[in-house]
């Protein structure tokens, strides 16, 4: 068993039996704790971008082309030089003894299991997309959790605008955005037709928006 000096940060999808660090809550917490001068250990499977943290609130802006995608991704060691990053899957947390069991992995290869003990364990659960049991929504929807999602959302929005610009009946084309990121993306996409110099996009968007074809819905609301 390894004994950590002060803090161990663990989080994400524990109910599913593995840990996937969701960067916003976790990285922000580490950033805010930086001034305390303690050593920190970040436990994560980081399945998409090992050794990097993604600032998720700006994903919609990356999807809308307002910021470059690489600019919202941060190497872990740039967040804090005192972070020790351990890639693996958390298989159990013992809150009384303050231990975390980790099934180590590196670049997809499983290593020996390890147990860590820390004075404080911070659990950052993150989130997963909720499709609210809508039939087929999970199949056709684009979630906004990963950098690839932003790229796919941007590509799909541009393809949708291309399609709309050639449709005789604009009612044949609609793009529905839901949730927090959907509302954010709506504002970003609304300017895309005007910013890429395609007049037909602008006409389509102007015609479509009052008719509700570009719709943002907050399912929680």
């Amino acid at each position, binding site marked *: 068993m390894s004994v950590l000096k002060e803090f161990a940060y663990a989080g994400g999808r524990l109910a599913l039996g593995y840990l996937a660090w969701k960067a*916003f809550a976790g*990285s*922000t917490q*580490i*950033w805010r704790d930086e001034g305390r001068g303690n050593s920190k250990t970040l436990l994560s499977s980081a399945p998409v971008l090992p050794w990097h*943290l993604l*600032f998720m*609130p*700006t994903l919609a*802006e990356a999807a*809308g*082309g*307002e*910021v*470059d995608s690489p*600019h*919202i991704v*941060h190497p872990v060691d*740039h*967040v804090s030089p005192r972070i020790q990053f351990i890639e693996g899957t958390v298989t159990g947390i013992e809150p009384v003894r303050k231990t975390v069991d980790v099934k180590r992995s590196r670049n997809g290869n499983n290593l020996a299991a390890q147990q860590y003990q820390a004075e404080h364990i911070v659990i950052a659960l993150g989130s997963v997309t909720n499709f609210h049991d809508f039939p*087929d929504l999970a199949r*056709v*929807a*684009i979630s906004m959790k990963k950098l690839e999602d932003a*790229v*796919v959302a*941007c*590509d*799909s*929005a*541009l*393809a*949708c605008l*291309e*399609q*709309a610009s050639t449709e005789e009946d604009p009612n*044949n*084309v*609609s*793009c*529905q955005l839901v949730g927090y990121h959907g509302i954010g993306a709506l504002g970003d996409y609304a*300017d*895309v037709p005007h*910013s*890429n110099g395609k007049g037909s996009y602008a006409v389509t968007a102007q015609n479509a928006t009052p008719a509700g074809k570009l719709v943002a819905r907050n399912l929680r609301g």
Partner: protein
Amino acid sequence: MRLQQESWWRATYVAEIPGGGQKARILSDWVLDFIFGRDPISLSPGTPALSRKNAIH
């Protein structure tokens, strides 16, 4: 009003983004967008549009 809201959100984002370098890069993106306009491009051409026409069968 819209400018105020956007400024508030962007200030919040910049405050929360870890790392001075990343803050500067994001800010420079916004400044350059303001000056030259946005230039969204498709990184994987051929991506299907997720429209109602395609999504509901």
